[in-house]
């Protein structure tokens, strides 16, 4: 059956606060998001900093050190973990267990639980971002040269990636299915985002692919905003790519998402 998104009903607004509070507790007790979105990327940055050559500026990298390049890559890594696992896994589990069905008999529409989950994942994303920037600053990587552009790039990266998580939640029937799809999508995305091979060193053909992949565009946008003036007309391509993915994934997720 299908249930449509209902406007806020007669449930007291405090109910949403209770939903968020319980989702935070669950995120703490089952810390997949906290590990993938916060602890792991910050830890990777610290580990990479222990490789001596990673801290030396290189001409081939535009005068940046490999560690500098890993700051935007790991921000993208954090967002991808939250979008591909943090967001869809609880939703699919709730649907599988009947939590959403039970909720739909109460004054609170199941869409509130989705929104609460989104709030929590965004919170972890912000914490992860702060963690990476703080660790980066402590290790001597430059702060974003253009804070407003940086914020815009991060917001559009979230907008391009989170609906992909909802689409996974729409396609997967079981928690296991969602995590398999998540992993199948994650590995190539991380490759094209430059986790193993920074975009600067990719052959042109791979880099062209990277430019149009959501996570590749996200890393490119965040990196550009960290280096200098951004967004510029000539450099706005990744923002358009992210916006396009946001619209496409958002439309497909809304079209195919099932509460039951």
């Amino acid at each position: 059956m299908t249930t449509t998104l209902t406007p806020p009903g007669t449930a007291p607004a405090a109910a949403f606060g209770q939903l968020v509070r319980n989702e935070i507790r669950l995120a703490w007790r089952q810390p997949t998001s906290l590990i993938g979105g916060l602890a792991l990327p910050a830890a990777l940055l610290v580990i990479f900093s222990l490789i001596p050559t990673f801290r030396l500026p290189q001409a081939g990298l535009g005068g940046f050190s490999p560690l500098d390049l890993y700051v935007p890559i790991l921000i993208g890594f954090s967002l991808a973990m939250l979008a591909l696992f943090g967001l869809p896994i609880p939703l699919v589990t709730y649907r599988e267990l009947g939590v959403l069905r039970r909720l739909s008999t109460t004054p609170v529409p199941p869409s509130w639980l989705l929104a609460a989950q989104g709030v929590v994942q965004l919170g972890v994303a912000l914490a992860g971002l702060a963690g990476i920037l703080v660790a980066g600053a402590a290790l001597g990587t430059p702060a974003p040269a253009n804070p407003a552009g940086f914020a815009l790039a991060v917001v559009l990266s979230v907008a391009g990636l989170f609906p992909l998580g909802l689409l996974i939640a729409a396609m997967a029937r079981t928690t296991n299915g969602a995590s398999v799809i998540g992993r199948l999508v994650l590995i190539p995305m991380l490759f094209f985002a430059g986790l193993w091979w920074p975009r600067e060193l990719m052959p042109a053909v791979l880099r062209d692919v990277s430019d149009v992949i959501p996570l590749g565009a996200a890393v490119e946008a965040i990196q550009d905003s960290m280096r200098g003036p951004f967004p510029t007309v000539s450099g706005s391509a990744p923002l358009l790519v992210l916006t396009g993915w946001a619209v496409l994934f958002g439309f497909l997720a809304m079209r195919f998402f099932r509460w039951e």
Partner: protein
Amino acid sequence: MTTHSSAVEISHLRKTYGNLVAVDDVSVSVAEGEIFGILGPNGAGKTTAIECAIGLREPDAGAIRLLGLDPHADRDQVRQLVGVQLQASAFPPKLRVGEILDMYRSFYRHPADVSELTGALGLAGQRGKFYRSLSGGQRQRLSVVLALIGRPRLAVLDEMTTGLDPQARRDAWGLIERVRDRGTTIVLVTHFMEEAERLCDRVALIDHGRVVALDAPDRLAAGAQGGKSVRFVPSGPFDETLLTGLPEVAGVQRQGQHVLVTGTGDLVNAVILALAAAGVTAGEVQLGTPDLEDAFVALTQQEGAMA
């Protein structure tokens, strides 16, 4: 909104899944303040009918009014006024009981006294327990508490006491009676004849997607076929025609050393007098009057034979 005296008004409800007709043609009216039971064999369409009634499924045909409201068009109002316990429902395994209770309580504008509900169902000391560590019976009791936590005007309970031990079942019955006494209408799907006889003002017997009987439990039972029975151990051998010749007797059956006589009217006296006249006494006499279970079996078999 119009005035209304029925809590539930269902007319000509029909729901099919492909070729399977789950609910054929169900019409039921439940008065406010009533405890209304829905009985029927597995797969009779009880749960589907209930899920259509509360707006969880879209019926193919028929009209539904809950407290005078349309469960789809007036969704939000209906959700505030109607508490539901589903047969299969679950909560996040790593939430604590108290956290689930506080969350569900916050959904309603006029919530109930949670400690009274949890106390009545033996969950008072369980607030700190994770949902995943609750036993099946505790989960079931929590589910009943959550159906009543919004102080609903109508509570719909699907197999409320399935999986509960006899004491917990009686606790639940007591709670339902108290909640009804405060004005809540109760609709309950049940498998337990004892539960229907004890709690329900009226029961609808559903079979093959139709209401095959609808009456007070004792009147349904009285109308059951088979009538009375006497079971006894005779003191010595006797000729069965001695009993089968009596007008009150419908059948005589040997069950090991026991004899089971079924019939109508003043069956016991007729049987004992006829035996005494032949010099046989009846020991360990057990009397049977028809109950709801007999009515259930009789009515659903009848329906099955017709189909």
